């Protein structure tokens, strides 16, 4: 693709690699870029494992960011060691509410979750723009008359502390990794995780075993949203301006993390621990893309195209693997009931038997 764009591919990729991995500073930038992807990625993983598709990362990030910002605006003087954990909690709650809405709609009104999460994204963006142009706008901006849509600098007690080492790395990166590990435990070591995965694989058998599919679908969306909400917290309180901002358009402050996180989750094989390196890779790609843009003057949008290609390849390879597995199982059981070997993968919260 680089050649088509008339650039030297070798220089281009060298710049990309150097920008992403060259030196502690660049590595730190990659990790910072990866942080929201990781949080969103593990959130998406929980939803996918429970058999529902959460495209609502963007909206849940924004919901978490708004709620935590409101919280810190309301209680700016609480000491840091109390304020920080509470801020994360409130942010998670915001995301959980936003995600939970999609879950409730799916479970109790049979609204397709892809549709509802996308719609909820749009609603969240517009609420954010409304708030930042209105009640939450920095009073200083109003005074100056420049009216840039962002909040005042939020309480320093809620700043995510910079980690030692002389880079811009802050606590959010650690929290993201910690949450990935926590979600691994949730999914594979707890009864709740067993229920989520059971419902995701086979809602019929789960119902027979006494689980509530509806309840678990709502819970999956809430856990998923909570992770995205925390991503929102890290983006606001780890930002250089330490404030909630928007560009007034549809992408706001998230840098499309709500979508890129899906890619990271898929690339991580929908496993919370593998999502850690996967999102780091994507963070690095995004950072490197800017370096490449500077070096050989190709648009960073190329990296986004690359992103898309990765999704195609990953999904394609999963499909190929599934086909191979099916072929293998067929050959070892050519005479058996092949129909009994394709368990239902639908995630309809109200499994109805076909007549």
């Amino acid at each position, binding site marked *: 693709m680089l050649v088509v764009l008339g650039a030297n591919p070798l220089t281009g990729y060298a710049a990309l690699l150097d920008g992403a991995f060259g030196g502690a500073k660049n590595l730190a930038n990659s990790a910072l870029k990866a942080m929201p992807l990781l949080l969103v990625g593990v959130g998406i993983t929980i939803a996918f494992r429970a058999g529902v598709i959460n495209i609502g990362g963007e909206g849940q990030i924004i919901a978490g960011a708004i709620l935590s910002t409101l919280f810190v605006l309301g209680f700016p003087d609480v000491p840091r060691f109390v304020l920080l954990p509470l801020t994360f909690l409130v942010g998670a709650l915001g995301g959980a509410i936003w995600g939970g809405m999609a879950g409730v709609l799916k479970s109790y009104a049979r609204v397709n979750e892809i549709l509802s999460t996308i719609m909820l994204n749009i609603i969240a963006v517009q609420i954010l723009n409304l708030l930042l142009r209105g009640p939450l706008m920095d009073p200083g901006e109003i005074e100056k008359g420049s009216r840039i849509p962002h909040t005042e600098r939020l309480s320093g007690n809620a700043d995510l502390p910079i980690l030692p080492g002389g880079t811009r790395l802050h606590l959010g990166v650690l929290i993201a990794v910690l949450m990935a590990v926590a979600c691994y435990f949730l999914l594979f070591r707890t009864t709740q995780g067993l229920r989520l995965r059971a419902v995701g694989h086979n809602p019929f058998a789960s119902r027979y075993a006494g689980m509530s599919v509806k309840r678990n679908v709502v819970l999956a969306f809430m856990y998923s949203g909570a992770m995205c909400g925390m991503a929102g917290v890290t983006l606001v309180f780890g930002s250089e301006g330490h404030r909630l901002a928007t560009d007034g358009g549809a992408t706001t402050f998230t840098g499309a993390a709500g979508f890129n996180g899906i890619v990271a989750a898929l690339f991580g094989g929908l496993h919370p621990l593998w999502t850690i390196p996967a999102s780091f890779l994507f963070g690095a790609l995004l950072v490197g893309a800017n370096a490449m843009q500077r070096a050989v003057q190709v648009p960073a949008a190329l990296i986004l195209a690359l992103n898309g290609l990765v999704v195609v390849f990953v999904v394609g390879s999963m499909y190929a693997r599934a086909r191979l597995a099916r072929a293998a199982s067929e050959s070892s059981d050519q005479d058996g009931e092949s129909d009994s070997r394709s368990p239902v993968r639908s995630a309809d919260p109200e499994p109805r*038997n076909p007549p």
Partner: protein
Amino acid sequence: MGPTTAGSPLLELEGITKRFPGVVANDRVDFDVRPGEVHTLLGENGAGKSTLMKILYGLYHADEGEIRLRGEPVTIDSPSDAIEQGIGMIHQHFMLVPTLTVAENVALGLPSGRRLLQDLSPVQQRIRELSEIYGLQVDPDAYIWQLAVGERQRVEIMKAIYRDVSLLILDEPTSVLTPAEVDDLFVTLRQMTDGGRGLVFISHKLHEVMSLSDRITVLRGGRVTGRTVPSETSREQLAHMMVGREVRLAPNRSEADVADARLTISALEVLGDRGTPAVTDFDLEVRSGEVVGIAGVSGNGQRELAEALAGLRPAASGTVVMNGVETTAKTPKEIRRLGVSYIPEERMRDGAIGEFSVAENLILTSHDLPPTSRRGFLNFKQIETGCSDLVRRFTVKTPSLETPTANLSGGNIQKLIIARELSGEPEVLIASQPTRGVDIGAAEYIHTVLMDQRAGGIAILLISEDLDEVIGLSDRIAVMFEGRVMGILDQEEATVQRLGLLMAGVSDGEAEERAGRQPAGSGPV
């Protein structure tokens, strides 16, 4: 049975070998069909029956061996080649388009006289003629979706006759039919062979095999393990050839102490998927130490009944009392906690999660109870010991506890489900089709387990379409027809004929009348 026609065989398969990675599905199999005979292919799941027939029908290629039709070697590369050579196949699952009429289905795939529009009137005419000749009642103008299962099968046969096949393969054709429909089918099949056609009959129902076949070939592990004729063998011998060891076909039933009622269903009404009543005015009582069988043709409300008892489908009216507690408005979990277990009809859909490991499936219903978990965290040590114990006790054959359940055989998955459902020491067990599609060895084992549980004093409701199983295991048998109990027979008075009439909706009084008129033993046993 009819004498086999002498002369050259219609079809000869010689030395057919088919290998799949890791298995030899067919190992030098010889098989032939003479004109005018029914040659049965008998074997368990995985024995290689379907592979052989798929080779014959052009769906697979044989690695070695030769196919000869009327003495001429042929290559069959696709089903259309097979059809051209006069080979027809009736699949277990019907290949009909529900939204089209019978005539349209029959005409489907036939060359049309005109270019774009097909003139169906000659097709309809021909169907009526053939109906007459073969006594095959088929209305060419009826839509498939309007037809009952037995009628749909007649359409499949009509398709084959219409195409004038000389060799017809029938893959488990009786699994969806009532005993009376099976009788009708066999009459039709006999008429077809009288016209010089050859039939390959695939079945695992031994009494049907004994009554219909001219010759029987038994396959096991891809090899021919026996060739015989019905007059020289018995069901026990056939089972022996299929499994490779002695098999007890009838389970040992000891006297059990029947005590108080554990499951009482009164005036139950349950709606089906379409919102019409699937179960109506249903009364039944199952006491501890008792097996009550529910016989009936599939689709007469058995599934809805089982789901209502499990709490998965709301009752429209009436009551269900289990272990002294009314369960009509309870959730599946609450009902399970009362000591009720289920063996669901569709094991891979409702009974187990294919992607889950053996251990995960074994704890599916007890995962949130101590000692399997504490404070929301799974106790892996306990799970490991508990599950190894269950796997051993119920002889589930699995490479490890971590193996994905979908990799096990049908019989072993069923044993796994039974192990899980009995691990909670239930007081009521609702077993739907517990041995459907499992191999004879596993079925024998499952029957033994059920009888042990009965002796242990639990109340068992056995829903099954396999009449031999229902008669062999049950103390009392209720026959379901269109959602109602047509009649309840004690085990001693239950015969396939009496049950068959009830299953067809003929009430007990009428049934006795007919039974009096008809000499015993005219049925398909």
